C-alpha cells in the first residue's frame, strides 16, 4: 500500500493509456489535464445518483437528502471538494487503481489490463471523459465535511 503511494509520488509523470484516442498525463497523485470540456455539476449529480451509470451511491454515502439507500463500503463523498483538488479527484475517478492496485473502486476511465470483460463493454470505459468531468464538477461543490 505504502509502496504504491511512493511509486505514484516518485514518478513525475506517467502515461496513462486509458483511452486509445488520447493518452492522459498523471502527475504525482493527480491528473491535471481535463478529459473533455468543462464539467457540468448538475449533470454530474445525475450521474452520481444513477445506479446504472455512475453506481457511486452503491458504495458511497453523499450529502444528498433526496437519496435513500446509500452504501457504506467507501468514504462519504461529503467534503470531497475540500479534501481534493479537481486534478486529484479526476485521477481518483478515472484511475484509482494507479494509486492503490488493491482498491475496491473501479477505474472509470480504464479500458486496458482488465480481464474477462463482458462483450458489450470491451474497450469502453465505465464513464466517458465528459461524464467524468461532470462528476468532478459536482464533487467540487461538496465542500462541507460529513457531520
Amino acid at each position: 500500500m505504502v509502496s504504491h503511494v511512493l511509486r505514484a509520488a516518485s514518478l513525475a509523470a506517467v502515461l496513462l493509456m486509458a483511452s486509445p484516442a488520447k493518452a492522459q498525463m498523471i502527475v504525482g497523485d493527480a491528473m491535471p489535464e481535463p478529459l473533455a470540456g468543462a464539467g457540468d455539476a448538475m449533470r454530474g449529480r445525475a450521474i452520481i445518483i444513477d445506479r446504472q451509470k455512475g453506481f457511486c451511491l452503491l458504495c458511497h454515502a453523499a450529502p444528498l437528502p433526496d437519496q435513500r439507500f446509500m452504501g457504506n463500503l467507501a468514504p462519504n463523498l461529503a467534503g470531497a471538494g475540500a479534501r481534493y483538488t479537481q486534478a486529484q479527484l479526476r485521477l481518483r475517478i478515472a484511475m484509482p487503481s494507479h494509486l492503490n492496485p488493491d482498491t475496491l473502486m473501479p477505474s472509470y476511465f480504464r479500458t486496458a489490463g482488465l480481464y474477462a470483460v463482458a462483450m458489450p463493454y470491451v474497450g469502453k470505459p465505465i464513464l466517458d471523459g465528459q461524464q467524468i468531468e461532470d462528476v468532478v464538477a459536482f464533487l467540487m461543490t461538496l465542500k462541507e465535511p460529513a457531520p
Partner: protein
Amino acid sequence: MKRLAVLIACLSGPVCAQDSKSVSFDKRSTFDLMKPETQAMQRDDASNPAMLWVQEGRALWQAKAGSTDKACQDCHGDVASMKGVATRYPAYSAAQQKVVTLGQQIQFCRAQEQKAEPWTAEARPVLALSALVGLQSRGLPLAKTGPAEARAVAEGRALFTERRGQMNLSCAQCHDDHAGQSLGGAIIPQGHPTGYPIYRLEWQDLGSLERRLRNCLNGVRSEPWPSGSSENVAVQTYLRERAAGLPIETPAIRP
C-alpha cells in the same frame, strides 16, 4: 519442502490470506439478512412458490421416461431415499470422471438410465427434480468436500478471488472482504449456496446457482463462466466447501 511451498504460495498471492480469513469466518446464511416477510415466505411451504416446482418434481420422479421406460423411483425408490444426497453436491462422479452438479447428475441419470432426450441446463424439469431432491436434505448441513473434489475446490477458490470484468472486482472482494456492509440498499451476503435451486424474487422464478452466478458476473460486467463448464462447476464446488456446515434450506426464497 511442503512448508516452503506453502510459504511461497503465501508470499505470492492473496489465496493464503483468504484461507486464514476463512478460519475465523462466522458463517451466516443469507436467510438471516432477509426481511421478516421474505423469511416468512420461505418458512411456510403453503406460501413458498418454489413448492410449485417441488410438486412438479414429485410427478416427474414417478413418471416413466425414455426408451427404457423407467422412472426415477424404479431405481431409487421413494424420493425420501435421497435424504442427504444434496449435501454432497457438486461431487466427483467416477462414471463421468469429473466433478458434477446435482443438476448435471440428474441429466446423466436421464441419459444413461432412461435413455431419454436431454433437457437444457436450466429447464424446468431439471429445476423441479433438483428442488425435490434438495428438499429431502432440508436442515442437514452441507458436507465438506473430499479429496476427489480437491482440485475443483482449488480451481474454484482461484476463480473466486480473481478480479474480472469492467468493474475489475472479484467475488471475494464483496462476499469475503465486505460481507455485512451495505451495497446501496442491500446488505452484501456471504454468498453461501444453501438453498438452491432458489426462488429469487428478482427472477419471479426458480433458478440454479449457475444462473445466480451469471447475475453476479453481470453486476461486475464480466463474461460469465460458460454454462456447465469446469470453471462454473469449480466455483460451485468451492462455494460448497466454503459453506460446509450450514444447513440446507432448499428450496429457499431470496430477494
